[in-house]
């Protein structure tokens, strides 16, 4: 089943009077349970694509379907609810809430989603990412790789259909990067988690099922 599908997706930004075409007609789809990497030179529209697929932003034209539903023109409240329930995000820079502990960070989306067993579930998820012993630490007390693992645990809080990661290892050393990517592999294989990940690293990209090559706002067919 196609979990993400885009058709002639375009996004342009106005920089002063100049129109910057960040995406220039992207037609693609991602199957349920796939682990897809997006690669390509800087400025080719990878992040823009991920933001549109994750309903963080709206396209200039074209359509986006998630699980077959046209989500292109949903209003912002509906999109927020959709993101909460169906999409998990991991960004390049650390995205934790500084004033919440590790466990509270993971609990928060579940509380928002009115799950009742959020305490147990957040402990489970933190065990899964190997941080079961850091529940009550603050993010500032963790290393970069550990923080990124907390972010991954948080992104999985509401069992999202799709996990979107924009250069999740971009700020990490090689060892931490490998840990993260192995975690992704594990999530994909053991939980059939659909993952779309942007990366600049060919080795990391190579660990995905499939690579989408972006160039100048479109997908290259290799």
């Amino acid at each position, binding site marked *: 089943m196609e979990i993400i599908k885009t058709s002639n997706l375009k996004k342009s930004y106005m920089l002063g009077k100049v129109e910057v075409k960040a995406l220039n007609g992207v037609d693609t789809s991602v199957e349920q349970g796939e682990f897809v990497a997006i690669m390509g030179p800087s400025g080719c529209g990878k992040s823009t694509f991920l933001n549109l697929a*994750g309903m*963080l*932003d709206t396209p200039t034209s074209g359509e986006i379907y998630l699980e077959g539903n046209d989500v292109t023109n949903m209003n*912002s*409240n509906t999109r927020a609810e959709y993101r909460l329930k169906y999409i998990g995000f991991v960004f390049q820079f650390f995205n934790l*809430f500084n004033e919440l502990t590790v466990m*509270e960070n993971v609990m*928060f989306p579940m509380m*928002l989603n*009115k799950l009742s067993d959020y305490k147990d579930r957040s402990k489970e998820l933190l065990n899964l990412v190997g941080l079961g012993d850091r529940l009550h630490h603050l993010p500032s007390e963790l290393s970069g790789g550990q923080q990124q693992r907390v972010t991954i645990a948080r992104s999985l809080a509401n069992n999202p259909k799709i996990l979107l990661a924009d250069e999740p290892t971009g700020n990490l050393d090689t060892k931490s990067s490998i840990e993260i990517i192995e975690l992704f592999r594990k999530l994909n294989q053991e939980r059939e988690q659909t993952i779309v990940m942007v990366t600049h690293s060919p080795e990391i990209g190579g660990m995905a099922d499939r690579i989408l090559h972006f160039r100048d706002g479109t997908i290259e067919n290799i």
Partner: protein
Amino acid sequence: MPVDLRCALFYSGKDIFKNRKIFIIITLSIILATANIIVINGLINGMIEDLVDNTVESSVGHLNIYPDNNERFIEGIGIKEQRLAALKEVEAYSPRISATGVLSNKELSVSNTILALDPDKERKTTKLLEKLIRGVAVNSNDKNAILVSSRLAEDLKLDVGDEATLAFENGIIKVYTVKGIVRTGNLDFDSSTIIMPINEAYRQLAIDNMASVILIKLSDKSMTEMYRPIIMQNLDVNNIKTWKEETEFISNFANSWRSISSIISGVGLIAAAISVGIVIYINVIHKKRQIGIMKAIGTNNAFIFTVFLMEAAIFGVIGVSIGDFLGYLAIKYFEANPFYDAISQTWISAKFESRLFYIVTIVSFVVTILAGVYPAIKASRVEIIKAIWGT
């Protein structure tokens, strides 16, 4: 999706307590502003109540008969007194003459009000003659004795036993001996009044059987409205004021006082609220990225708005309730332990009024919350993409 208040509170609480120092300082400013308003108003209420009590005790009766318009005196008071004595609920009455004069002691002289009364009747009607701080009261047949109010005595350097010269409004000048010093607590009265027997005033002013006012004491203070028409009819008089009407000027005066003090305290409150607004605003600016992440996770604008408004509300709830509590304690303390004010020479105590208390609570709370509105709007408008990519 309705805003989940529990989640919003969860985050606001964590966010607000994260910086303890700022939290304490800001909360303190709300506490002080709230307590200040409560205490100031409580003291004003206390002063007003004392003033009303003093006035009612010494200067007015439950009902007070005045001359008709354009007349200076009530005439034929002998008959009127007889008729009063016949009325069942009239417990006592006291006719008074008021006139003006100038009292001198050597080079010092001060113009004053001469209050002439019958000491025996006055004693049954008011507590004025109990307000002696030195010496003794005048008798109805005293010819050379007067009582002098405390501040007047001070100004003229007079004490019990001293002689002073009184010039009446008709030009007659006579030397009197100060028999006692009176202090009522009413500033106006205390600064310029002398008291003499009414017969002596009749003699010097060459009048008789007249009064400037007749004070009436009823068996029950609350019967004034009922009794006013009865007395009007029986005594054939038109101009009667109740003790409430007599003290109305005090409450009017109090209200203007209150407005002034409210403005002053309001400034303090607004300053506190502005600091709440600024702290939350700065927080929002610093947190743009986290706000963006929160939205990416799936919260909507209304939720973000609620989070930051709730921070203002937390400051409000904690600050106002502690302020209320401290203000309440302070008022209760001053109620039990009045303090002496050297300037007005009176004891100042406070009076707790629950209506005021509720108003202050609501106003302080609302003002504090309002301070959070702008930062909360600002936060709710953070754009996800811009915030996450740090532009």
